[in-house]
């Protein structure tokens, strides 16, 4: 499972970096989305990969190794919300720029 997750994070991140470096704003925003997926998965995995285990218990005297770490789940939730909001904001700026400059190039003008 670790290998699959690591590979998917790598593929997402690589594609994201490539897209962010492209000259069109739509490619950049797609790249940012892929990057944030990769990062969210990454944070999630930092609590160690575990299958089918509860994150929280009310009983005391438990063996922590038997439980999933709840903290990364809380962190990733926050990160998703913040990342989503700022990407949405970027989308608005992107549209404004398209309207003002008439091009979707990141520099606001077609390269000579």
């Amino acid at each position, binding site marked *: 499972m670790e290998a699959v997750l690591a590979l998917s994070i790598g593929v997402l991140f690589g594609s994201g970096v490539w897209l962010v470096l492209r000259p069109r704003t739509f490619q950049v925003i797609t790249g*940012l989305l892929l990057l944030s997926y990769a990062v969210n998965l990454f944070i999630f995995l*930092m609590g160690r990969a575990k299958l089918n285990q509860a994150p929280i218990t009310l009983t005391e005297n438990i063996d922590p190794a038997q439980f999933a770490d709840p903290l990364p789940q809380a962190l990733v939730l926050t990160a998703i919300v913040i990342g989503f909001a700022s990407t949405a904001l970027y989308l608005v700026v992107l549209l404004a720029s398209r309207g003002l*400059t008439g091009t979707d190039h990141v520099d606001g003008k077609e390269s000579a």
Partner: protein
Amino acid sequence: MMEQWSSHLIILPILLPMVSAALLILFSRRNYSLRFGLSAVSTAAQFAAALCLLQLVEKDHWSGGIGVYLAANWVAPFGIALVVDRLAVLMLLLTSVMGLGALWYSYVRWGRVGVHYFSLFQFLLMGLNGAFLTGDLFNLFVFFEVMLAASYGLVLHGYNSVRVRASMQFIVVNLLCSLLFLIGVALIYAATGTLNMADIAAKTVALNATDRQLLHIAAAILAVAFLTKSAIWPLSFWLPTTYSAASPPVAAMLVLVTKVGIYTVLRLWSLIFSHEAGGSAYFGAAVLLWGGVGTIAFGLIGMYASQEPGRLASYSAIISSGTLLAVISYGQVSLTSAALFYLLSSTLAVAAFMLLIELIERIRNPAAAMLALTMEAFAIEDEPGESAGVAVPGALAFLGLAFAGCALIMAGLPPLSGFIAKFSIFHALLTEHAETTLGYSGWTLLILIVVSGFAAVLALMRFGVRTFWASPVSKTPRLQVTEAAPIFALVLICVLFTVQAGPLKRYLDRTAASLHAPQGYIQQVLSQPAVPNPGGAP
């Protein structure tokens, strides 16, 4: 009772701007003076709160001058802790002073163009104050995002195509930084199992080799994020475009946003990689030093190359970042204290210069074309500001004097505070290494700081001569008192720094001493007890 009141004071600099920003959204666009009044009151209250905190920290209300506020009443490594110490108080004061200045300046014109300026401004202050107060790494991320989200909106403020283009790059760079920040935070959690800064520092000492490697990787990734924000070379390409495009009061606040990156580096680096950190002591010091040196070199070349005053100020901000990072990287009390003095005076001077630029531009091109475009976009019928307020007599003399004041501080020439800052940096560099040799890195830094001062003198003088002497001034520009007064106040504070350099420097010495003895911070945070349940223990 007294104890409770004072501990809740710590969270006030975050709550005040948050509540007032939320209130400001509710008011209609018509009620301008009410909105301005509310945000002014809120900012002034933040200043007052920061002053109270300064009193409490200085009077040793909390042991060691470090106050801890457990936000959800969970003890330190588990819940989020807010920590106020001398450095945090200093930055809170700087934030509220600059906030007051920028707000005052925007009264005449910039507050009127565009919507939600004041609430965005308060959110920016909230993010800044929170970033200075928090003692938790992930909470720091959240406050960074609050600050950045507000700054995206503010850079776009006074919407025109230059600003949209600049903010497109600004937003992408900062989003990428935020992602790096998250990766770094996640790795730190993987290595140490905690996100509380004090706890991370406490755990660093006893890490095994594998986890230590992981921690170092995490720190390096985090550093990329913070150093991009503090505009270290070669990650500073975004800064001049953004700063010169933003409207003047926003650009002034952005100068402070850069310093947040420096603050974070100083805070985390001196806490986690202090001399007490065992195998991780002074990790990355060489990168900070040479990065800082490279940044100074880049900034001074940029300063020579730029004709436009906005870019001139931006490169000056870059030079100041570089100097700070390089000086901090020595991890010595005397150098850090000198760096903090430099931080205060250069931040205020560059911010004042950012505000001054717009007024100076009125001499150079009276038809402010860009502003006209802005006005059109928001369909403001009455030309604001022309009738309101009192014009400054002797506008040209004021502009010239204020320009000279800012230039002296930015270049670090006597008699103003810039000189004292640089002098104390030199003094600390040379005395700290009196018995050993300074080394070629130290000499490079010393020479570059001198050369960057000369570069600033030449570039600013070129600009000043061209503006005030060479150009035929047909008519003196009209200045409002509310535009001139904040600039005057900011420069005056720098003059006060010069006059009161002794007490200020002693305060900064204490700040630096407690920064470089992180055991006090760690113990204070981790030993803070939770408030007992008022209904009695269950």
